[in-house]
């Protein structure tokens, strides 16, 4: 008699990328259409998230209906420019460059105590200003590029890089974006390099976060689905990794919400008065 034992079950992050790409291209088309847009605009940083978003936008709308913006600061890594150009060329989109240095330095000159961290936030918000102005100029809807891992960790500048109204990658973990990027033909140099916000020279995401994406994403998926700590530890993660992941998520719920409004009536918007964002009778 053969005795067969099933392996321990765990959540699977590997997806059917063909199906995902099809779904996300339809998503972009339909979400633009009801808002009355035919074109999209993407701020391309040279990183994998914006490259993947650009690739999806081109699939959805055609290269001629997609604007790509590169928004460097004078200390941005030269590799970022090279990679942004490579990505735009790969997907057949012209890359428009707007140097945000004068915007950032204009404020920095008025603010002698500006720390590198605060300056990084100013850069993110300067990029948001340019993105939305170009959106208006070209009548092209900004697409967000934030992935699920950074959204859950609050690893972004509030009202900076989280502002675009339509985001195709926001329910994909970073490691899933890597796999989708490979499927979509994002250049290997962009997919393989260590992820960085590039706000401070030498910065990397994984050093900032203190945990590897490959491990954080598996922990996150099990934590979000409600698996108890012991189960997650049983998958081979350390208590320190689990603690870091949970702490990051639970310190930043406010960042994933609209501003808090004092509720006085029984018609409070979003509390009592509830309508979906695409409701327009």
């Amino acid at each position: 008699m053969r005795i067969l034992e099933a392996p321990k079950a765990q959540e699977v992050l590997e997806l059917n990328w063909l199906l995902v790409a099809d779904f996300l291209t339809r998503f972009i088309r339909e979400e633009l259409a009801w808002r009355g847009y035919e074109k999209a605009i993407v701020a391309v940083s040279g990183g994998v998230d914006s490259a993947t978003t650009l690739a999806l936008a081109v699939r959805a709308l055609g290269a001629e209906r997609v604007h790509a913006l590169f928004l460097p600061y004078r200390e941005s890594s030269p590799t970022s420019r090279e990679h942004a150009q490579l990505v735009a060329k790969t997907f057949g989109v012209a890359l428009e460059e707007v140097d945000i240095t004068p915007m950032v330095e204009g404020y920095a000159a008025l603010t002698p105590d500006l720390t590198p961290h605060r300056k990084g936030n100013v850069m993110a918000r300067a990029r948001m200003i340019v993105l939305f102005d170009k959106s208006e100029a070209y009548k092209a809807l900004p697409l967000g590029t934030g992935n699920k891992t950074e959204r859950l960790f609050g690893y972004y500048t509030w009202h900076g890089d989280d502002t675009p109204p339509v985001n195709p990658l926001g329910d994909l973990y970073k490691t899933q974006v890597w796999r989708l990027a490979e499927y979509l033909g994002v250049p290997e140099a962009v997919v393989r390099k260590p992820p960085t916000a590039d706000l401070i020279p030498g910065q990397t995401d994984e050093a900032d976060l203190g945990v590897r994406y490959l491990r954080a994403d598996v922990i996150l998926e099990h934590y979000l689905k409600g698996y108890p700590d012991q189960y997650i530890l049983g998958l081979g993660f350390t208590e320190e990794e689990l603690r870091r992941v949970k702490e990051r998520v639970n310190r930043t719920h406010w960042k994933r919400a609209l501003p808090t409004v004092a509720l006085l009536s029984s018609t409070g918007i979003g509390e009592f008065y509830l309508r979906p964002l695409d409701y327009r009778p």
Partner: protein
Amino acid sequence: MEEVRHAVLQFRPEKSRIGESLARLRAHLEALRPHAPQVVVLPEAALTGYFLQGGVRELALTRHELLELLVGVYEEVGWEGVLDVVVGFYERDEGAYYNSAAYLELPHRVVHVHRKVFLPTYGVFDEERYLARGRRVEAFRTRFGKAALLICEDFWHSITATLAALDGAEVIYVPAASPARGFQGGYPENVARWRTLAQAVAAEHGLYVVVASLVGFEGGKGMSGGSLAVGPDGRVLAEAPLFEEAALLFALDRGRIAPVRYESPLLSDLEAGLPLLLPDLQRVLGRRDADT
């Protein structure tokens, strides 16, 4: 004549705009007219879209308003003869709101309305916040035989289809709205589940199952489509693609039901065996305790 020509219309509504959805429906019926379907089956919440939150109160229709609107479309298209339509809609009745499906004989009458019993209120769903539950599952007579209506999650509980089958339904129409989720396999997980359920229910009871599933994105949630028609032996007769509008044409042949049930008499077994289990059903529902 035992063959009834059906069209399952995998439909994308104009969200929260009934007039524009009706115009879209009119265009689709014009395209279908040369194929002369006798029954057209539409998805859940077909004229408004599914996720309305409190907007249900503003867009719900009485069954007679629904009939009037669809008779209007029928007349504008200039359809000849009677057309049966199954359609999901938000229903208003005496100050209460329901997620309902109607079986209509255009241009004449409302044949039957089913109110969804199982209102999903978990995960991405929030129906019971806005809607009241239906309380009945029953088969009804159409000009083609006996049918039943179930709406989306109703069908995910096998007991509802069992009731419909015991009540004499030869076909179960299932208007549905199912946001795609779970992208690990060849199909989204919810679509694979629909297929498995429809085949299992059809084969268990020897009846037709017709699932009409909504398409279109609603606030990032992509209604999956994948509508399907399954024969009484559990075989898929026709299946629509994912995510896009489509019409599935198939003939429902009542003549196939008797031979399938003869070969696999599970329904008559159920009729004989179910009464034996009723005491246990009462026991697990706690009614015995409540009665004593």
